[in-house]
């Protein structure tokens, strides 16, 4: 499966998006902490985290015996670069030429 396939597959599940939301609200959590506020079994959370990690949306760091989970937004940035930026480009160009004119350049 390509990187993009793994990424969109990971995002296509409500439970996994919820996990990303939990990590966005509070980064650096253990499995037990992530399980605490979710209506999912520990095993379910473990499986979802594995899919998120394979898509690189979650990064894991070991600190002693603990395994800490971090939200990794870099693949989302790549979606932005690939799918959103090109549609924003004309607006950005207009803004930067407005800025140049207002600041006294040649626009």
């Amino acid at each position: 499966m390509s990187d993009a396939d793994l990424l969109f597959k990971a995002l296509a599940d409500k439970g996994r998006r919820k996990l990303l939301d939990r990590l966005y609200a509070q980064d650096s959590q253990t499995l037990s902490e992530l399980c605490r506020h979710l209506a999912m079994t520990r095993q379910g959370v473990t499986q979802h985290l594995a899919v998120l990690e394979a898509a690189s949306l979650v990064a894991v760091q070991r600190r002693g015996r603990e395994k800490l989970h971090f939200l990794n937004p870099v693949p989302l940035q790549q979606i932005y670069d690939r799918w959103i930026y090109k549609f924003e480009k004309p607006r950005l160009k207009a803004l930067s030429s407005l800025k140049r004119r207002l600041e006294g350049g040649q626009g």
Partner: protein
Amino acid sequence: MRAAGRSRFVYVIYIRSTPQKVWKALTDSKFIRQYWFGMDIQSAWKKGSPWKMTLPDGMPTDTGKILEIEPPKRMVIHWQHEWQKDIKAEGPGRCTIELKKVQASVRVTITHEINRPKSKLIEAVAGGWPLILSNLKSLLENGKIAVKDHPRH
């Protein structure tokens, strides 16, 4: 964040390249200016040497020094922001960059941390790194950057 009194993030990107090429792109001004939205970084890249990030006009935004360096695997930078007063007042943070060969790719891991809760430095750099890493990946894999003028820059 979880650990009391600390703010930290961990970002990861896989780049289809070699550790040597990624390392060069992270330490060579010619490369840096291409994917870092015109910013430049200057350092001798030796343990203890000063490190400085500057705007295109040469004004420094961040300074520091190299705490650890082991090309092409790992470096730790002592990172002091200089530009915005409230962020500067937080004092220095640490940025660790690790490269690891994984099959035909390099896994780049950036850990940026500071010993204080709810840090503005960490919030500020957390917004910048994804753009920079994504551009770096495009530059190394396709020879050109994806995003030139970013709305947040």
